[in-house]
């Protein structure tokens, strides 16, 4: 049984390693086959993955289902956009401003939201992100609902963020950093507490933990990870728009997380990859199939996506990567 377990253990870890290795070499491959466009696509996947990892910290490890994390993507994006707009080009400064703003906003919102639980929490997080969404729509001098193009990318001296490959590796570095942070965090004392909260919060209190404080810190960290993703997203698209704050965005992030496997380290990365690639594939589906099926899929790709989601939730109840982890027997 032990050897069997070991060989299985390798499966989920192998998938994780192969995936990360693929991300590491993707730009080289893209240049190699003369399709540098894919660098931008995969940059976007990684940015969503970072955000989904942030969502996963709250959702997968603490059990806080937030439908409002798009708010923090928006804060990251608007921090960059407004700074650039007012003449501040230094990307490191953007990063600081974004994280500071994220913290200032996440702490009080987290405190209020954490008074509720279950579906109340879902709705109150949604409420706060909607408030900021309408605020962004009302920011006339910053483009209102039409959004705001950035004159350039942030200047991350000495790196050249304007170069697609450099930018890609910046996003890759952030992704790795966030994964490492999370990997350490969930196995550290703090991680034990928040995972305990997910499993049985009343018991945690009876053990003597002030669960509110721990959950709040977890919420703020997960929000700040999304702020990072927002900073990157604004730079990738050179655009800041209220639609980054919409609840649809929060919903997409939750879907990516759960699709990949909530409460697993690599799950959100798998989920983001599968989600964006599926969207890309289905929306421009040009594979020849009989009975005009190809045309049908292309014009009804959202329905196909919906069916995929339903099938995944009915069959692989722990998500794509979560399924592998569960086969390997454990939370790793």
């Amino acid at each position: 049984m032990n050897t069997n377990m070991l060989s299985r253990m390798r499966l989920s870890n192998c998938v994780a390693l192969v995936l990360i290795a693929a991300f590491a070499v993707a730009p080289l491959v893209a240049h190699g086959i003369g399709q540098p466009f894919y660098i931008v696509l995969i940059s976007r996947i990684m940015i969503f993955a970072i955000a989904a990892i942030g969502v996963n910290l709250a959702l997968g490890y603490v059990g806080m289902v937030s439908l409002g994390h798009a708010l923090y993507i928006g804060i990251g994006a608007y921090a960059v956009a407004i700074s650039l707009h007012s003449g501040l080009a230094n990307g490191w400064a953007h990063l600081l401003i974004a994280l500071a703003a994220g913290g200032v906003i996440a702490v009080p919102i987290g405190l209020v939201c954490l008074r509720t639980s279950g579906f109340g929490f879902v709705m109150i997080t949604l409420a706060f992100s909607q408030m900021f969404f309408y605020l962004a729509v009302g920011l006339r001098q910053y483009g209102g609902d039409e959004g705001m193009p950035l004159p350039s990318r942030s200047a991350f001296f000495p790196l050249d963020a304007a170069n697609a490959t450099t930018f890609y590796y910046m996003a890759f570095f952030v992704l790795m950093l966030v994964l490492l942070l999370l990997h350490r965090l969930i196995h550290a004392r703090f991680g034990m507490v928040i995972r305990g909260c997910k499993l049985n919060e009343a018991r945690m209190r009876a053990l003597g933990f002030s669960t509110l404080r721990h959950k709040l810190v977890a919420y703020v960290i997960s929000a700040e990870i999304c702020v990072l993703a927002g900073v990157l997203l604004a730079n990738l698209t050179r655009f800041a728009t209220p639609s980054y704050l919409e609840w649809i965005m929060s919903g997409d992030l939750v879907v990516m997380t759960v699709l990949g496997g909530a409460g697993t380290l690599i799950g959100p990365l798998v989920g983001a990859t599968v989600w964006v690639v599926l969207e890309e594939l289905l929306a421009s589906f040009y594979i020849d199939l009989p009975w005009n099926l190809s045309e049908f899929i292309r014009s009804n790709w959202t329905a196909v996506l919906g069916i995929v989601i339903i099938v995944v939730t009915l069959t692989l109840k722990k998500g794509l990567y979560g399924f592998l982890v569960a086969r390997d027997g454990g939370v790793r």
Partner: protein
Amino acid sequence: MSLLEVKGLVKRFGGLLATDNLDLTIKPGELHAIIGPNGAGKTTLISQLSGTLRPTEGSILLEGRDITRWPVHRRAALGLARSYQITSVFTEFTVIENVMLAVQARSGSSFSFWTNVHSDAALVEPARDILRQVGLLDVADVPVARIAHGGRRQLEIAMSLAMAPRLLLLDEPMAGMSHSESKEMVTLLRRLKGQYGILLVEHDMSAVFALADRITVLVYGKPIACGRPEEIRKDKAVRAAYLGEEEIAA
């Protein structure tokens, strides 16, 4: 000074009186058992002591400190450890991780984000000590989901011990156990007795009479008798209450 002193405790649910003007003391190192027919308000009492329920009236003092209005986690931090009637361990964690979590609760800060708990000697060593005490050391690295019911109850006790408690609140630790498992539990409790103050709620009468220093009998939330086991055995009111129940049960 008493370890625990409960004075005039009253708990009402709407019109229902679940705890009726209860006084109770536990001395350091004493094992005090609470018995009573179903619906006597035993679990309600434990919940009020541990802090998940607010009493309607009365006060609770732990080592002279009034903790009546304290939240659960502060009471726990002061040394009030509760084991649950329904096993309430973290099944996704391993046995030792469960105990380490309890050790961690007592050991100050949990805001450490980097060091793996398994390489944290301040958690692992005490946890192993306690597992050795309760006889679970050989299953330390097994996920709780895979160990038997009796083992989980022992783990509950281990977690309570890991909190470095002054007072253990044990809510039916032998419920659902096989005969041999119960015997092991009695041995364990006998070993713990004297080191900690223990409030034991239990249906297994032979265990209660074998272990308890004092026994309080609750009926409909009201203490009808309190004394040493042999006094209780002879008490008329107690016999009436229990005989009455048996008649209904039969």
